[in-house]
């Protein structure tokens, strides 16, 4: 009975797969079969999920591991499809640990999506953070290790804020069921939960972990990461917080913020990472508007976005894998040696820009139209301007400076077959959804009578795309990439950490030395005196004492000394850690 319930849950396939993978680390072919079979099985199995399953009681709480409705289904569908594409893309990766991390990461994402209560969400939420950090660390470069630690710290803080919200909420209403929260009656607890979710959705000013970490991840790891963390956050926001005005405004700001950085950044994967912020902004904005059409648009956009953003990361990742470079100023003229990667990346680029007959056209416009129907003119214009920046930065600038532009002399060769196959599947889906939008619209949580292919919408899109092209043509020299990176709000904690480390090295370390010195001169003598006195007392005074107790006291004194000198450093270390957390909380709140 229990095993049946466990096997119902798609996340358990990925967890079992993660345990099986190391057993076959010598048998590569078996490992590859597992890598493909698990996502395929999950993709098939999500169609047969009952509405509710896996309810169990734990320490007085009722945990719901499976809650399925249309909103869950659309996200499960794209997550398992993306897991399959990602698994194909990383078939050639040799490290078993990388595959395990990817599987556990997907399991965390699926578990969160299916969870019906906050505790279950929290468990899978943390699994996601801790599994995905390995996808950064497996790059095995110093920068990646450091970025991974920052990623982990930020997500730990986000997780703690979420947990604080969950506790407060339980205190308030003794109910942990995860359902829609109404904007009118929202309490501090609900806002804390929302901030925890927003951190994973990379809403500025708590977004800097994303463009910091994703460009440092492994080639295949970035493909996984761009799909799951932010879109799981979009799901939980869509489930819990539709109609929060704050989200509509922050979402609209996000779209422009991300795209602004995408225009000026130099590293191709950082451009794409910033562009996730922009694209997730559309979804957050749609959720904030909160009408049926807007939430539908957010879900449709999440579905479409996962596929074309993964396609872009795969295309740029192929270049990085084959040439070892991802900075635009070091690339150029690659169309001669990597035309296949160019072809797929451009499909991703036109899809993200919303060309007619691609998936972006049928999803992004839904959110913009929802803003229009709701008479939010400023938000609508902001979203439209972000669409201009999208085509400018990802649709034109990125492919132009990698594959055309000046010839950099970098010689690539085409990516392995599995990478190209994964790109082909994603590219097919981008076009397929654009040509046959009903496939996606059928899955959306609310009934949908939106028709993207109206003459006016086509005209509007063609003008936006055409004149963005003109803008690029006029400013191409001004847009030339520089080998620079741009400051963002991670400055606060990266510099804050340096100040903090300085404090730890200088004043605290001096104080530590001083205390140590005082101890050596005063404390040690005192201990020795006590020990001597006690030993005298033992040896000379009383003969009924147990044999050897004097020696014991001397030994005890030694131990205390060792313990204390060690402890001072530990205390300082503890204080350092506590201060760090306080600092982070101040920065983030």
């Amino acid at each position, binding site marked *: 009975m229990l095993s049946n319930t466990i096997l119902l849950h798609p996340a358990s396939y990925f967890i079992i797969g993660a345990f099986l993978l190391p057993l076959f680390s010598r048998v590569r072919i078996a490992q590859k079969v597992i890598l493909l079979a698990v996502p395929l099985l999950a993709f098939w199995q999500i169609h047969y999920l009952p509405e509710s399953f896996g309810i169990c009681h734990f320490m007085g709480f009722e945990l719901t591991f499976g809650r399925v409705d249309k909103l869950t289904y659309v996200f499960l569908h794209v997550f398992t499809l993306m897991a399959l594409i990602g698994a194909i893309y990383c078939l050639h990766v040799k490290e078993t640990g990388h595959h395990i991390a990817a599987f556990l990461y997907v399991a965390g994402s699926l578990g969160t999506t299916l969870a019906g209560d906050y505790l279950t969400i929290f468990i899978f939420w943390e699994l996601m953070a801790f599994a995905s950090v390995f996808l950064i660390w497996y790059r095995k470069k110093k920068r990646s290790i450091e970025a991974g630690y920052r990623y982990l710290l930020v997500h730990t803080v986000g997780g703690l804020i979420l947990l604080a919200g969950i506790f407060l909420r339980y205190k308030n209403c003794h109910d942990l069921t995860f359902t829609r929260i109404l904007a009118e009656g929202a309490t501090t607890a609900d806002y804390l939960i929302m901030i925890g979710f927003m951190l994973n959705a990379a809403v500025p000013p708590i977004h800097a972990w994303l463009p910091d970490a994703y460009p440092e991840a492994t080639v295949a790891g970035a493909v996984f990461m761009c799909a799951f963390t932010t879109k799981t956050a979009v799901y939980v926001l869509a489930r819990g917080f539709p109609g929060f005005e704050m989200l509509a405004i922050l979402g609209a700001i996000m779209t422009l913020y991300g795209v602004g950085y995408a*225009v000026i950044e130099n590293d191709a994967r950082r451009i794409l990472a910033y562009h996730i912020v922009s694209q997730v902004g559309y979804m957050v904005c749609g959720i904030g508007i909160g009408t049926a059409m807007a939430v539908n648009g957010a879900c449709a956009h999440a579905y479409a976005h996962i596929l074309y953003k993964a396609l872009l990361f795969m295309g740029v990742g192929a270049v990085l894998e084959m040439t070892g470079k991802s900075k635009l100023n070091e690339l150029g003229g690659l169309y001669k040696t990597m035309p296949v990667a160019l072809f797929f990346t451009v499909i991703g680029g036109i899809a993200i820009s919303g060309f007619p007959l691609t998936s972006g056209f049928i999803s992004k416009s839904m959110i913009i139209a929802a803003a229009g129907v709701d008479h939010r003119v400023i938000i609508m214009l902001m979203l439209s301007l972000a669409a201009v920046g999208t085509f400018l930065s990802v649709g034109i600038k990125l492919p132009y400076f990698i594959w055309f532009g000046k010839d950099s002399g970098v010689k690539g060769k085409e990516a392995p077959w599995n990478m190209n196959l994964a790109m082909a599947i994603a590219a097919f889906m981008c076009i397929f959804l654009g040509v046959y939008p009903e496939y996606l619209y059928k899955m959306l949580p609310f009934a949908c009578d939106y028709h993207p292919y109206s003459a006016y919408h086509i005209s509007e899109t*063609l003008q936006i795309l055409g004149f*963005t092209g003109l*803008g690029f*043509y006029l400013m191409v020299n*001004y847009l030339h990439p520089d080998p620079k*990176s741009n400051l963002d709000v991670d400055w606060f904690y990266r510099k804050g950490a340096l100040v903090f480390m300085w404090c730890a090295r200088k004043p605290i370390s001096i104080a530590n030395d001083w205390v140590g010195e005082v101890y050596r001169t005063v404390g040690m003598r005192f201990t020795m005196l006590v020990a001597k006195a006690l030993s005298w007392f033992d040896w000379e005074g009383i003969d009924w004492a147990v044999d050897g107790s004097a020696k014991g006291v001397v030994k005890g004194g030694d131990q205390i000394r060792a313990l204390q000198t060690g402890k001072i450093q530990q205390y300082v270390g503890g204080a350092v850690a506590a201060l760090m957390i306080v600092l982070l909380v101040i920065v983030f709140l």
Partner: protein
Amino acid sequence: MAKVLGYLQAHANVLKWIFFAFLLGTLVFDFMIERHHAHFWGDSIIGFWSLFTLFGCLGMIVFCKGLSHVWLAQPEDFYDREDSDNVE
């Protein structure tokens, strides 16, 4: 495919004029279509999105690049370097 792209690059001038013709085409198309339900005032102006895009695009490039030049852009080892300074 590389050959086709090479050929196209060699004839960039022709592409340029096709592109300009396309821009003109979008404007002409905007004259012809029906406007059923305008969401706001801009939807009833012919060519509104062309102007919006052109100025928005140029404005965005100038603003972002400018901000990057005067403030945001730092050497790529900005954080690493500060770190090593402190270590001495």
